[in-house]
């Protein structure tokens, strides 16, 4: 038996380089696109917050420091939009989650026609968001929609009005549309997580004497908890930024009563073409989101450390 002197394996540089570069070559096209179309504008957008950019004014573009933020501090519409965002996000996420969970539980066990039922229940997600918005706007419109009349018949409204024109009730329109549209997402994600729970656990629990509610509480919920947590976290962020339905159904009205921060940014950019102010609001939104995410990460760390 021969013993070679200990020497670290040297490979030709070209091969080492080619090997190391391989994963980057695979991911480069995607990365380049993301950086160009999402990161660069992000940085640009942040810079706009400190400049005066009026699209219609070719002479604008100058640096104005914190002027936008000063204006923002006085902007009542902005603060109302902040409150609305909380209301919109909270109600939407809660209702989507509860009804989505129930649907997932209903679909978990096989039954005749489950495939068809599943496809039909998930269909709303395929509907383009703008169409969902228009669809529900039309449903709430007493001229051609049944809902105002039914609500009047059930005593919920005292006249078959369009709730979208009612400053008190307008927010419910987009919320209901959002719930209709968003239940499938929660249901699909929770269903996938439910199906990953090993059936043996339920069988063992039944043998041990656990009833359906106990099985749900001691097996289903703990297994589902991580998925629920992540899904709710992600959807909260996503929904708080989801302006499509509001823009389509109420355009922020009546009188800015349904404006959320994301739709407010859009109207500032699109309607008033004030890119600078819009960017300033967007920057504030971004900071708020970062703080929210940091809080979640900290919360997760403390929970993990407790174990």
């Amino acid at each position, binding site marked *: 038996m021969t013993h070679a002197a200990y020497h670290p394996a040297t490979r030709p540089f070209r091969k080492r380089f080619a090997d190391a570069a391989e994963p980057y070559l695979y991911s480069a096209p995607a990365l380049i696109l993301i950086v160009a179309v999402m990161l660069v504008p992000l940085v640009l957008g942040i810079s706009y917050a400190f400049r005066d950019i009026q699209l219609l004014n070719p002479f604008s573009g100058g640096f104005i420091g914190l002027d936008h933020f000063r204006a923002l501090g006085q902007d009542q519409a902005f603060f109302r939009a902040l409150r609305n965002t909380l209301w919109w996000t909270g109600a939407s996420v809660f209702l989507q989650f509860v009804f989505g969970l129930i649907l997932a539980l209903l679909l978990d066990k096989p039954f005749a026609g489950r495939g068809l039922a599943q496809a039909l229940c998930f269909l709303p997600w*395929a509907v383009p968001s703008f169409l969902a918005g228009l669809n529900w706007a039309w449903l709430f419109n007493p001229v*051609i929609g049944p809902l105002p009349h039914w609500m009047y018949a059930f005593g919920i409204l005292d006249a078959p009005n369009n709730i979208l024109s009612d400053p008190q009730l307008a927010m419910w329109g987009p919320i209901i549309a959002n719930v209709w549209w968003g239940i499938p997402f929660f249901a699909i994600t929770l269903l996938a997580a439910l199906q990953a729970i090993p059936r043996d656990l339920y069988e063992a629990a039944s043998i041990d004497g656990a009833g359906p509610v106990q099985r749900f509480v001691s097996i289903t919920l703990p297994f589902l908890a991580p998925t629920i947590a992540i899904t709710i976290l992600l959807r909260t962020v996503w929904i708080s930024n989801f302006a499509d339905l509001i823009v389509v159904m109420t355009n922020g009205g009546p009188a800015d009563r349904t404006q959320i921060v994301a739709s407010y940014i859009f109207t500032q950019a*699109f309607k008033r073409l004030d890119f600078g102010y819009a960017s300033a609001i967007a920057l504030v939104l971004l900071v708020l989101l970062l703080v929210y995410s940091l809080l979640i990460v900290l919360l997760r760390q403390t929970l993990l450390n407790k174990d």
Partner: protein
Amino acid sequence: MRTRKLAFTLAHRLAILAYIAFALFPLFWLLKVSVTPNDLLYSEGVRMWPSRATLEHYTFVIAHSAFPTFFKNSLIVAGSTAVTVTILASLAGYALSRFRFRAKYWIVALMLITQMFPLVMLVAPIFKMLSPLGLTNSLTGLVIVYTAFNVPFATFLMQSFFDGIPKDLEEAAMIDGATQFIAFRQIILPLTLPGIAATLGFVFTAAWSELLFALMLISGNDAATFPVGLLTFVSKFSVDFGQMMAAGILALIPACLFFLLIQRYLVQGLTAGAVKG
């Protein structure tokens, strides 16, 4: 005992039926109004089905309006985006699934971050960036933007499908004489056909529905996609509900078709990733 089980089953079926009704009713109403002739529209407002159904709105929308252009534009944009994203996401998802490399953590972090911030923020800068390139008011511009927006989620989707395929297969192929790329093309890709179908369908649906950036970037009717077209019609004229709804039904069809085809794979794909951990 049997009656309890029966009652339970009955309650279960009723609940499912309630969900189906809730899911389908708005679409049904859309259909109903779209086949209600104009003279009955207001008088028969709350009926479940018009006394006289008609296809006049559909013929109008298809033959006499700008909607076919909108439809065609949306098909081009959504289709191109779906194909481009799937190609890019397959490559990147494969890299994330199979290779161990230092930047992997950063790439994943980058993709996650892009999913978190509000796209609305980018509306202004993207407009200013695309404008000198002549890409505003163009379908190409939309495809570029939509592709970038959808690549991160599609990459994660493809990655979870790749994770479900054992690495032995590539190793066996490499021992048999293949390079990693050949193994990727000839062995792995054919096995992820469900994943590819799911990604294509998902991206197509997302691109088909996108509203805000289309609204921002498109100004004329020539390059208008369906959302823009429909919305401008709604706000411009005294609303012809029958036609609007007919156009809406037409807008639904591609998205729903795709979705019905791939929704089974979505659950499968999400579970595959979950089982892997």
